[in-house]
């Protein structure tokens, strides 16, 4: 078992607020590691620090052994760390297809190409179409992102992350705002993607989390109070106390 990600004594302060408080966490290569916790526990803040969007106050983030805590977001993306956003972040004037194709283009090297039409370059639109197909949005490829329904924008957000072909995929509540059908589709998709990518999944839908995760970490006030298999987490008394109601603890059990 190789540790894809090792988070060591990670701290993040917003003024006096400890959004991440001495967090230690390992993510094994190929696993789907879910991060759960109540609102305001610091899950999004953690994803932001892992992706490089926000700088950690102190601590280390090792990606396959290399400390990446001081690298910029683009540098981390080039190493294969890609995030999706809890609050959809799209280029609203571009079509769904162009949004995804840009991810493919960015992966393909620099973009200092000034004349050739990139919008019908099949090297980019081909894989982009695949990614849209995977999330079930292929039929809306030509629609401007800003005109997609909220649930569709969530699907697009996921397609963009997939098209970047990450080694480590950081998903911040990908199902939030989706309808039941779309959520099911994403759960199926994540199950399919599971072994191919290392995934950190922040999600509120406990059914999905317990169905998908290899391991789960529970965050409370920026601190990790437990890590374990779904079975272990369900039984953990500290977790029951701090966060999971009896309902949620029963979720996913046969």
């Amino acid at each position, binding site marked *: 078992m190789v540790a894809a990600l090792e988070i060591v004594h990670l701290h993040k302060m917003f003024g006096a607020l400890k959004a991440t408080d001495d967090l230690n966490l390992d993510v094994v290569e190929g696993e789907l590691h879910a991060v759960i916790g109540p609102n305001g526990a610091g899950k999004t803040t953690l994803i932001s620090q892992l992706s490089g969007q926000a700088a950690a106050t102190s601590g280390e983030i090792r990606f396959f052994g290399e400390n990446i805590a001081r690298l910029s977001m*683009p540098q981390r*993306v080039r190493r294969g760390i890609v995030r999706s956003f809890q609050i959809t*972040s799209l*280029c*609203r004037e571009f079509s769904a297809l162009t949004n995804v194709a840009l991810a493919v283009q960015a992966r393909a090297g620099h*973009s200092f*190409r000034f*004349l050739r039409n990139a919008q019908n370059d099949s090297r980019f639109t081909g894989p982009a179409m695949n990614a849209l197909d995977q999330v079930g949005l292929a039929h809306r490829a030509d629609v401007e992102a800003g005109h997609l329904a909220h649930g569709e924008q969530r699907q697009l957000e996921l397609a963009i992350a997939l098209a*970047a072909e990450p080694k480590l995929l950081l998903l911040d509540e990908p199902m939030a705002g989706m309808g039941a059908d779309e959520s099911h589709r994403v759960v199926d998709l994540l199950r399919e993607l599971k072994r191919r990518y290392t995934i950190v999944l922040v999600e509120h839908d406990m059914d999905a989390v317990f169905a998908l995760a290899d391991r789960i970490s529970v965050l409370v006030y920026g601190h990790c109070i437990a890590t374990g298999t779904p079975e272990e987490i369900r039984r953990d008394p500290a977790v029951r106390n701090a966060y999971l109601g009896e309902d949620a603890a029963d979720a996913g059990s046969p």
Partner: protein
Amino acid sequence: MLKKLLSLPIKHRLLILAGVAPLALLLAFAPFVFEVLEQPFYLRVASRILVFALAASSLNLVLGFGGMVSLGHAAFVGIGSYVVAILAWHASNEVPLSLGPFVIAGTTDGLVAWPVAILAAMLSACIIGAISLRTSGLYFIMITLAFAQMIYYYAVSLQQYGGDDGMRMRGRSILPGLDLSNRTTFYYFALASLALCLIFLFCLARSRFGLVISGIRQNETRMRALGIEPYPYQLTCFTISGAIAGFAGVLMVNLDSFVSPADLSMARSSELIAMILIGGVGSLWGPLLGAGFYILGQLGLGTLTTYWPLFFGPALIVIVLFARRGLVGLFVPGRS
């Protein structure tokens, strides 16, 4: 573009044709039309519109397309003009021009002076961009303005070259096989330059580079999350824009045979911004329509009253408020 046009409803297609066709015909045959009407003055106005459209297009590239609100863009236009005029001055006065350790002869040869002028504008844009793009938002706006003011006062201080009063060129630049002093030739040269520039910008917008620049304007965080560092792309865009602005300056000084600090003043920068706002921010044809409207409007009101800015200002505000996408929005239907 054609595909897009054909996908529009018939009514809109006709509307576009009705608007664009007469304009295109007028642009193509302006010299003959004004010849027949015995109004050579208006050919000069038409040339002026083309040259300003080129300058406004360069600003539109960074401001409308790239979302970088540069308030001092006239500086790059003015640098292009000044370089051509200064080289010509040294040629006609037969005084060598000393630049620190280098001493060069002046020239009126367009093949020499123009590339030097464009390079100078480009280099200035690169340096100013490199510094100001480190900041963003209001700071960026203020820094571009501060640099432009510096260049303006520098131009004012150039006593040898007329200082405040500016300097006159004895004749237009010499190009092989083209007599720019002929006003019809000059007009077509400006028209071809603008057309080439618009074709370039059209291709640029759809290229990999263009998608990245537009993406940065729409959502910078998203682009970073795709692994794209905005700075080098924005700087390149700014530099390209500086080169086009410099070229517009080259044509401008040739059109007027005159350049003064007013040509790189803040007032001129605001005029360019006004043209873009009138024509349609970020659209390919906006700068041309805006330049046409602005210059003709100024001319028309100017013959009626010396207080024309009093009427022109409010007219601008009305256009910006009620036709948010500018004049282009009247021809091209909005997104549904």
